[in-house]
Each structure stands twice: as structure tokens, then as C-alpha cells.
């Protein structure tokens, strides 16, 4: 079972890996976007960590809805409402349960991913974060490791795609040959699940 602490560790591990990889995310974004994805994500998840420590929520669902709300208000770029919606809808789908199963998390994250697709109007193959999240959700019920690998593979598979959403879509053919920064950060979020399973991972839980 996954308890409230697991979800706080997930957010802490995400904040840590996003901070470590911020420069790489910004470099990816500099190629086809506006070169702020790494710093935006680092600021957003640092704020999430702060608020989770100051006002520790009582349930897994509350951890994710609080995290989502803070991402929307602190990120400033389009990834704020997108990641905010992802976590908030996932949190809402988890409800008030004090503990959830991996399958329940997989189902809830699926609802979160659908909400992201609806908000951004994107679908698989548009060279967005969905290209990492959709394959990850498919196998999340099996294991976090499988989900991590699927998300990474999905992010790498965005390299030959042509962007159809966001600023990168204005580049047309020139967006081909670059990994989508949103897919790269989505793979970090999914990968952080594997670190959250061991108590103490990611620091501040």
C-alpha cells in the first residue's frame, strides 16, 4: 500500500531530480522553446516541497492536489497549469483514502493524464509530455520500474517527431531532431516514483 508519506517522498524525489536536471531541461527547451523549462520546473517543485513541509496534508490525494495547486501558481509557464492539472486531477481521483494501491494510483494518474490532454488539446505523437505519460500509465499497474522505462522511452521517441502544440509547433519541420522538454520532465516525474518506495529517498520525508 502507498501511504501519505510515500506521496510526499514522491514529490521530494521529483523536486530533487528536477533540480539536478534543470540545466538539461532548459537546454532542451532552448532548442525548440523559450529556454525556461528547467528553471520553471525547479522553482515549481521547490515551492511544492516547501508547502508540503509547512502544511503536511493528511492523505495521498491531498498531497497531490496541494502540489498541483502550487505548481499552477508558481511555475509561470505553460508547464504550470499542465503539471498542476496532472497532479490535481490525480489527487482528486484518489479521494480521501489514507492509503492506496499501485493499481489505484495507476488509474488515478490515468485520469490526470486525460485531464492534461483535454486542457492542452494534445494527443499522442504531438511531441508533448503526453508522449512520456501515456505509455507510462499503461504499465504503471505492473511496476514503477516498468513505468519509468516506458516514460523514458516515450520521451526519447519524441526526438524525430514534429511538434504540433505550444511554441515549438511554430518551428514546424525544424522541431524535428530535438527531444521534447515536457516529455523529458514527465519522465523524471514518473521515474521519481521508483525512488519514493524506499523511505528516506529524496530527502525530506
Amino acid at each position, binding site marked *: 500500500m502507498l501511504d501519505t508519506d510515500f506521496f510526499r517522498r514522491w514529490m521530494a524525489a521529483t523536486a530533487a531530480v528536477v533540480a539536478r536536471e534543470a540545466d538539461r531541461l532548459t537546454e532542451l527547451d532552448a532548442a525548440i522553446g523559450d529556454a525556461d523549462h528547467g528553471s520553471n520546473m525547479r522553482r515549481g517543485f521547490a515551492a511544492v516541497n516547501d508547502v508540503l513541509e509547512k502544511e503536511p496534508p493528511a492523505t495521498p490525494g491531498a498531497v497531490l492536489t496541494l502540489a498541483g495547486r502550487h505548481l499552477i*501558481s508558481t511555475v*509561470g509557464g*505553460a508547464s*504550470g*497549469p*499542465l503539471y498542476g*492539472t496532472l497532479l490535481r486531477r490525480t489527487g482528486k481521483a484518489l479521494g480521501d483514502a489514507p492509503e492506496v494501491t499501485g493499481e489505484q494510483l495507476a488509474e488515478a494518474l490515468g485520469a490526470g493524464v486525460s485531464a492534461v490532454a483535454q486542457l492542452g488539446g494534445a494527443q499522442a505523437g504531438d511531441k508533448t509530455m503526453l508522449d512520456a505519460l501515456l505509455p507510462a500509465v499503461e504499465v504503471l499497474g505492473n511496476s514503477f520500474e516498468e513505468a519509468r522505462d516506458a516514460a523514458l522511452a516515450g520521451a526519447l521517441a519524441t526526438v524525430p517527431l514534429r511538434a504540433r502544440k*505550444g*511554441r515549438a509547433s511554430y518551428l514546424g519541420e525544424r522541431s524535428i531532431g530535438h527531444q521534447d522538454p515536457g516529455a523529458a520532465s514527465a519522465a523524471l516525474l514518473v521515474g521519481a516514483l521508483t525512488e519514493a518506495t524506499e523511505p528516506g529517498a529524496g530527502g525530506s520525508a
Partner: protein
Amino acid sequence: MSEEKQVGIVLVSHSGPVAEAVAELARGLAAGGATAPVAAAGGTSAGGLGTSTELIAEAARTVDRGVGIALLVDLGSAVLTVKSMLAEGGELPDGARLVDAPFVEGAVAALVTASAGGDLETVEAAATDAYGYRKA
């Protein structure tokens, strides 16, 4: 037509100066004295490019007269942030609505219509209608 309570207009841009300038332009073109309330919410709270939920929520409170608020948006995060605020509920006053319209032309049409006492549906229709004006 009651002129007392007018629809409020909020202009949400990726850039603070763009939002302010479009608000100024709309006020100037609506002209002829007092206009309906209009507020700009552009850029991040720190003054950079991006979108701020705080600035949007504050602008919406400022223009809220209780008869509806039309939010016009420009690019990327401006669109997504307003959509996600409306989906969440509680962050914007009741009657706040995202209006699908070209930013500059829609802002002028919305403010002129709101200043003439149009209700939220009429303001929205006028702003959206601005898409229909072909330039070439």
C-alpha cells in the same frame, strides 16, 4: 438598459507591457467617458514573461461588479492558466468566463460592448465576432 453594473474585462497576456498596452488601447477606442472596468494581468508576479495566477485573480476581483467577467487571453500559458483556474473553481469570482477571441481586437470589442451595458453573453459574442474580420 441598466448602466450601473457592467461586465468586467480581464486581459491576460504572456507579457505585462502587452496586457497594459492593450487595456490602454481598448480604453482609448471605447472612449467617450467612463468605460466598463478593465484590468491587465500580464507576465509573472516578478515582472518576467509568463502568467501569474495571483495577478489574474487580483485583476478579476478588481473588475468584478457581480454581473460577469470576460477573460481574454493571448498565448500558451495565458490560455492554459486561465483554463485550469476555471476548472479548479474558487480561484476566480462567480461569473468569470474565458472568452475565445483575438486578443487585441477582441479586447476592444469586449470593452465597447461592456461599456454600452451589454451582458456577459453579448460581450462574449462581440469579442468572438472579431475573429470574423478579415484583413486580407
